[in-house]
């Protein structure tokens, strides 16, 4: 069991809105821990459209998704927030009251945070693997169909079917082919999105007979009681073959699911969290929601709106963290105290 981390605020989601809020909180001396299920910061911007241009960030006629995230990381660096990547926030337990809120936040990795407030910046929800629409696949999930690899040893001596054409699929082909009894890679076409050196390594293994490459799409699965025994694959020419396998790893990219947020005692409206427009606080005092995840009259799902929401939520968070302190309004341009925090004065 890891030790409980005590902090001022936990931000759920390291998308652009969460990242800018770290900066706003930093100016107000609030300590932040950030948690995201992804392995990197940036949310939708870095996961869905890193190379696409954004044209409506104030002051940036054009910036790419990844470019914006890199800048936001640079901007919040002076406050050295702690990032916890690859962890999903699962549960929230309220301990305090409306005047001095306190919460225990738990992640799926077993980490516990004791915090005075929570800012939910969870966007469209946590990124989770897309599940292929194969009838009856649920009965195999977690037993012989896996969307992520936790322990490689589990595949020792198994006949593994890996489905997909991106880096995840190819990486696992290369990692598992020597451990597994046999690895088969299935993809819908003979072109791969993965890094060229992985694709070349995979082709070498196929040429030397160390693994199989199959082109087509799965139409059904065979097996019993959660144990897979084969997959029926349809090819472009209309013919079908059955692949002998006892484990399947499908990699069809990620989709956003609201996930555990639904169970935290918050009001929900069509999978969004209603907030006020003064502090962007939810129905639970001390829990805020900003960015794509929230809703209020006139809400626009724009990064720009999320930045504003984060700045106002930060003000109220500061009142919970420092109930005695008077928060004075200051400009970063002229305030030496703010500039000292930023390390420029």
């Amino acid at each position, binding site marked *: 069991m890891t030790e409980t981390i005590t902090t001022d605020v936990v931000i759920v989601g390291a998308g652009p809105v969460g990242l800018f809020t770290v900066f706003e909180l930093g100016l107000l001396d609030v300590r932040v821990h950030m948690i995201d299920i992804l392995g990197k910061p940036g949310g939708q911007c870095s996961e869905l459209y890193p190379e696409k241009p954004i044209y409506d960030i104030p002051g940036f006629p054009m910036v790419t998704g990844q470019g914006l995230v890199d800048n936001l990381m640079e901007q919040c660096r002076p406050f050295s927030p702690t990032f916890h990547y690859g962890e999903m926030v699962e549960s929230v337990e309220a301990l305090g009251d409306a005047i001095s809120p306190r919460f225990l936040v738990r992640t799926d990795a077993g980490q516990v945070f004791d915090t005075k407030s929570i800012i939910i910046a969870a966007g469209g929800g946590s990124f989770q693997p897309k599940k292929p629409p194969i009838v009856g696949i649920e009965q195999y999930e977690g037993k012989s169909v896996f969307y992520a690899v936790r322990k490689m040893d589990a595949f020792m001596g198994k006949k593994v079917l890996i489905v997909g054409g991106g880096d995840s699929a190819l990486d696992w082909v290369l990692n598992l082919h020597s451990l597994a009894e046999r690895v088969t890679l299935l993809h819908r076409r003979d072109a791969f999105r993965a890094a060229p050196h992985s694709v070349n390594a995979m082709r070498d293994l196929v040429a030397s007979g160390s693994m199989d490459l199959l082109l087509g799409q799965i139409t059904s699965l065979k097996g019993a009681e959660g144990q897979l025994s084969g997959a029926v694959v349809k090819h*472009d020419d209309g013919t079908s073959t059955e692949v002998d396998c006892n484990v399947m790893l499908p990699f*069809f990219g990620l989709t956003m699911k609201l996930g555990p947020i639904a169970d935290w005692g918050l009001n929900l409206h069509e999978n969004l969290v209603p907030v006020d427009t003064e502090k962007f606080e939810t129905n639970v005092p001390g829990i805020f929601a900003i960015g794509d995840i929230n809703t209020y009259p006139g809400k626009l799902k724009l990064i720009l709106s999320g930045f504003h929401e984060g700045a106002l939520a930060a003000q109220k968070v500061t009142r919970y963290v420092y109930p005695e302190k008077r928060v004075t309004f200051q400009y970063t341009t002229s305030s030496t105290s703010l500039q000292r925090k930023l390390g420029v004065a």
Partner: protein
Amino acid sequence: MPKITFIDSAGTARDVEAEQGSTVMESAVRNGIPEIEAECGGACACATCHVYVEPDWLEATGKAEPMEEDMLDFAFEVKPNSRLSCQIKVRPNLDGLTVRTPSRQG
């Protein structure tokens, strides 16, 4: 304005008037066509605007660009006539275009 017909997975056909220069996806969304989700709003980043182009129209709609082919890897039940409708621009030669929508997007 060019007319586009969407046939859903149950076989129901719906006609819409499509604005030139817009995309087939946008025409669907503007007219509330079911079975087109278009989560990413047309950025070729979600594969939830997947359609099957009727064989007669394959030549007029042309081929998917490599970026679109990459994104089609994330769609399900992809066929040789699969396209992402946000990547098909409405032009006069597409008047009468007919596409089918799959029963599930993403």
